[in-house]
């Protein structure tokens, strides 16, 4: 008899402990870091008085209030640890730049809106992304989420965001399966098909009809390879793929395979295309350097190669020399000579003391789209924001070009500039040689 009671008592205690623990966590959490959109900052003269009030209550203050500043929180969910950490940190910093710029402009104009950022780490895993986004939405009341890089992360939070009605603007997710209309997911990058075509056309434009592609065996790399292959073969070319598991520290076997495929297909008329990120790209180039065949063919790469991390002083000069030797040609997501792109690069370096990494312009644009959306909507109601993103983005000219979103909330047109690395004296430089015209699917050389 007593036995039965104790078993249920144990269960009851467990449940009470669970609730108490959760309640404690929830109470402690926000009280350490007060939710910002409930904080009203009153600026009077040079003095700033901050008082926390509920949204409906009226601010009463003895000081003469000149203007009430409304503060919105933009939540950044980026890959700050794990496999894509170097990527995620760049995106986050680019986004922070956008918010700083926006706040400076708003302050100058005296418009009573400010933006606050909260950064959370997704640990480069789907579950980590869910936890990060939940914390942003619930602990910090983020009006809009910017990030993450990985399509898996975006896919993992899609259900949650649709239910909570919070808009997410992703910088870099390219998965085709997320091309769904009427959801809360928006992407300032074109899905893989556009980039695949641009890459394919840039190879074709140089007269190659054979290509060997070494690519990351994950969502991004695989879809890009698929689209590349489709377009390249439609133009009468042949493509061989060498997939590799990303996040390893040894790619010798894969590079040897690549070399073998190139030799088989004829080094003179074959282009090597690398679909890699920064860390694996460095390893692959470092290994390919030692290979005779691969040192004497033309290389093409995606935009990740066109970053300072591949050049001295951040990387050994031998790798940069190799890139020059094989005339590595890379495309990046911006229209040629876009002043905003160069302004972005400059401001980034000024703010963070280092050069922007691959695709950082997309992180910058994603944050700007989020900011402009809130400003145009004038509210942080999720439904309204969702309907505002597409028209707002269409009006925005970003560092990565014009962000024309289709009905699914994905970028429909992407500008690509094709550039090649050269060595001038002791320094290495990327020069723009052509641009990709998405509407005609052609590559046009740049003439100055």
């Amino acid at each position, binding site marked *: 008899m007593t036995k039965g009671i104790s078993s249920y008592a144990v269960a009851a205690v467990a449940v009470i402990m669970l609730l108490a623990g959760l309640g404690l966590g929830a109470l402690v959490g926000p009280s350490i870091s007060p939710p910002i959109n409930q904080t009203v900052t009153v600026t009077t003269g040079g003095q700033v008085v901050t008082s926390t009030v509920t949204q409906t209550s009226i601010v009463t203050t003895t000081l003469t209030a000149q203007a009430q500043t409304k503060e919105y929180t933009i939540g950044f969910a980026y890959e700050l*640890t794990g496999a894509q*950490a*170097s990527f995620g940190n760049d995106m986050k910093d680019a986004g922070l730049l956008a918010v700083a710029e926006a706040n400076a402009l708003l302050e100058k104009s005296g418009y009573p809106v400010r933006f606050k950022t909260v950064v959370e780490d997704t640990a480069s895993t789907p579950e980590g992304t869910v936890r990060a986004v939940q914390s942003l939405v619930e602990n910090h009341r983020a009006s809009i989420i910017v990030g993450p890089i990985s399509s898996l992360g975006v896919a993992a939070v899609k259900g949650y965001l649709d239910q909570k009605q919070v808009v997410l603007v992703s910088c870099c997710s390219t998965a085709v399966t997320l091309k769904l209309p009427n959801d809360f997911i928006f992407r300032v990058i074109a899905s893989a098909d556009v980039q695949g075509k641009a890459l394919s056309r840039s190879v074709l434009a140089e007269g190659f009809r054979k290509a060997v592609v070494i690519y990351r*065996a994950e969502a991004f790399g695989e879809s890009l390879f698929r689209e590349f292959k489709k377009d390249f073969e439609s133009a009468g070319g042949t493509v061989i793929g*060498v*997939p*590799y*598991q990303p*996040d*390893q*520290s*040894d790619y*010798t*076997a*894969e590079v*040897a*395979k690549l070399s*073998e495929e190139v030799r088989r297909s004829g080094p003179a008329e074959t282009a090597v295309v690398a679909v890699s990120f*920064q*860390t694996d790209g*460095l*390893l692959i180039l*470092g290994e390919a*350097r*030692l*290979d*005779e065949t691969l040192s004497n063919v033309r290389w093409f790469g995606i935009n990740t190669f066109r970053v300072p*991390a591949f050049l001295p002083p*951040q*990387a*050994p000069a*031998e*790798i940069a020399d190799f890139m020059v030797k094989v005339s590595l040609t890379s495309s990046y997501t911006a229209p040629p000579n876009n002043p905003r792109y160069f302004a972005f690069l400059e401001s980034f370096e000024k703010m963070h003391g*280092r050069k922007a990494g691959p695709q950082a312009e997309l992180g910058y644009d994603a944050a700007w789209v989020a900011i402009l959306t809130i400003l145009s909507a004038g509210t942080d109601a999720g439904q309204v924001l969702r309907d505002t993103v597409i028209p707002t983005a269409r009006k925005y000219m970003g560092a990565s070009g014009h962000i024309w979103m289709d009905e699914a909330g994905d970028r429909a047109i992407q500008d690509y500039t094709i550039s090649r690395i050269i060595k001038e004296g002791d320094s290495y430089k990327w020069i723009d040689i052509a641009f990709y015209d998405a509407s005609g699917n052609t590559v046009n050389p740049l003439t100055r």
Partner: protein
Amino acid sequence: MIEIASSLVRALQSGALYALMAIGLTLTLAILKIPNIAHAEYVTVGGYVSFYLINFAGFPLWQTVLPAFIFSGVVAVLSYLAVFRPLKTRKVSMFILMVASFAVSLIIRYSIYTIVAAANWGFGVKPKVVTNVVFRIAGIPITDILLMVLPITVVVTVTLYLFMIKTLQGKQMRAVADDPDLAVVSGINVDNVAVLTFFISGGLAGLAGAFWVVFTHAHPDIGLEALIRIIAASALGGFISYPGTLIGAFIVTLAENTVMDILNRNFGLSLALKPLMPMIITIVILVLRPAGITGLFSRQPRGRVAR
């Protein structure tokens, strides 16, 4: 044929490095009965010592080897003194030691993460010194890393072997491996032996790390990434055999390079499946040949050992 030959050369190169990493794991397991997962982190520590000296002090690679050895050895000894010794005196089970080593590995790895982030070194950066091709045999590149690592592995192996059988300390180590209680009774200071074992195994891992970082890149996860191969190599040696571990390391890399190459060539198996190889080796070895291993793991009751 030439492809097979060149994959053999590649297997030899990374096999020698994995062998250096795995020997230490086998040493601590066989002598002290500590399954030290944190062993992989000593590789990372050595790698970062070498990376720092190369990139910020302008050292050539060969000069970074000794500092990496000593530094990693010291980190290993510290982890022994701070964690494993107190636990050992409590006579905890091998499993508890493994859990503790997992905690140690978390602490070391994320401390490195913190340092790298604070110093703004970047993740996945290539050190300034790179591998170079010294000469080619029939088109197969022979790199300077291979020419450095292979002799070092041979020298280290032979030295360690001689050390174990000729010197007093080596004999003590073997005595402790055979029967720790008996060793205590015969007047061996087990604690000194343990410190020495940790210094040597941590040092060897650090030494391997110094080369490994040049071969790959500087990232706090390089040790973790190598861990499965280290375990597989050690498993092939039955977790106790020191030459077995050596051969095991070569078998693992052989499977990852040559066997994978053959599978890819003849059966169209995607190279993306390469990381399966060490896992499959581990499973097959443990399922087919558990006898060599069960001797080590005597059936200890959990908690305090009745004695």
